[in-house]
């Protein structure tokens, strides 16, 4: 274990320690902020309860990311290809960020029913925005000189995309994806407000209404764990893909 990892662990340990101390010294009631020991204990002891819910949420997150990528990637390419599309889409995209879930929840239910689809859509909507924007900025950051070179070679738009703009935008794309997978967890949770029967978000609302705050935080711990795993995976893929840096 190297020095940097050690330091990292120390920092995390101290955050946890401060949290624990805060709870004990100020005697913060468990239903306001449970101490980490209790949260960890609940996360493990109630794994039998948490695990099936976590599975559902994980599935929603992964599907949400897929759907998001499926829309964000072509859309950002389209916006990049045509500035007027960008001009037209930007307001719609920004507007899409301003719509809170409860306003559209009935619509989603009307259109998609109570199954997984509405949750996946909510998660996708949330992840979608940072990916589209960062990818678009990535494409745009390509030096004009290189674009010209490809023009001279008679490259079609798609060839330029594949061989020039994409590799160029990759670091940006991964930055966006990192933001995306992190907010995906909250996306799925919000999605589960749209009438779910399962999932960590559903469990949390239930537990919260019953003031079982330790269970709420245990669910958050699982969520965070899932978020970190995906973050790590994206980092791994990034290092594999962007090797020339």
């Amino acid at each position: 274990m190297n020095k940097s990892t050690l330091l990292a662990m120390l920092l995390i340990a101290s955050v946890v320690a401060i949290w624990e101390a805060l709870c004990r010294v100020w005697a913060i009631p468990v239903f306001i902020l449970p101490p980490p020991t209790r949260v960890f204990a609940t996360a493990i002891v109630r794994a039998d309860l948490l695990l099936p819910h976590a599975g559902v949420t994980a599935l929603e997150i992964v599907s949400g990311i897929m759907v998001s990528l499926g829309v964000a990637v072509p859309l950002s390419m389209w916006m990049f290809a045509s500035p007027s599309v960008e001009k037209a889409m930007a307001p719609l995209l920004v507007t899409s960020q301003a719509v809170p879930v409860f306003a559209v929840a009935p619509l989603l239910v009307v259109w998609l029913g109570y199954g997984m689809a509405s949750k996946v859509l909510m998660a996708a909507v949330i992840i979608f925005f940072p990916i589209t924007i960062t990818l678009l900025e990535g494409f745009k950051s390509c030096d004009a000189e290189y674009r010209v070179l490809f023009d001279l070679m008679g490259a079609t738009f798609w060839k330029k995309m594949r061989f020039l703009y994409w590799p160029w935008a990759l670091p940006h794309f991964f930055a966006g994806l990192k933001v995306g997978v992190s907010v995906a967890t909250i996306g799925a949770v919000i999605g589960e407000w749209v009438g779910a029967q399962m999932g960590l978000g559903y469990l949390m609302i239930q537990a919260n209404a019953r003031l079982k705050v330790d269970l709420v935080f245990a669910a958050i711990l699982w969520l965070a764990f899932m978020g970190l795993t995906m973050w790590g995976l994206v980092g791994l893929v990034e290092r594999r893909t962007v090797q020339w840096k």
Partner: protein
Amino acid sequence: AERLTLMLDWFPNVDHLPIYLAQQRGDFAARGLEIRIVSPSDTADALKLAASGHVDMAVSYEPQAIIAASEGLTVRVFGRLIEHPLTTLLFLRNRGIEAPRDLIGKRIGYTVPGLMDVLLEAFAKINGIDDYTAINVGFTIAQSLTAGRVDAIMGPFKTYETVVLDHLGYNAGYFELEKWGIPDYDELVFVCGTAAATRHRAALQSFVEAVQVGIDLARQDPANSLEAYLKAVPEADRRTETEAFRLTLPYYASHQRLSTVRWQQFADFALRHDLIERPVNVDHLLLQETE
């Protein structure tokens, strides 16, 4: 079997116990019904979706149904689950609050803006609380009370938040609305859209009958009924729900006849106190054979 979807007002809780009981015992199936129970994301969703016909039935609140009627939503009320208000003005005991007038000059929270703040206003006016600060606390009920951010809250249920607070070691007191000048009303009711009201008329009738059977059974055999419910809703917390069930038991509907007079009284009260803007004639709202 006739398939119907029921949307609850909120996540499943003991208020809905008779429904789950009827489901578990096969009372719906016996009447040729196949009921699917779903939860909403917001308490207003169920009514909206029922009114638009996207769900067949919904659990709603009498005040909400009256607001909807006033706003021109085409809903019909065809049954009830809880026949008196559970909503209270809740406070912690041992903090010097005995009567509503003790709240003069205090900070009073409320849970749902647009609904509970209006009820609070009416409650204050009727009971002479002429000076107070209203604070929207959302659903941070126990936290804001125990942390002393507010002195009382309009909105918590006397059958639920009291139990939760008790388990946290706090003794909660409350003012019941119907005892302090606000007309009595049906806390939880069943609503449907106009289309469903005609198309599924018979099925809706069978449904409330089955629910009423569930209610009666819960009264006769509380212990087994609770077990059946806990089996249907495994996420529920046994200790809290047991206690809440005991407190809710007296409030389940004793029969399914809706009182036009009582509903009209509340509608008039709502108009008087700005809960609604346009008058509501409950004859068009209530769906029943005869009063």
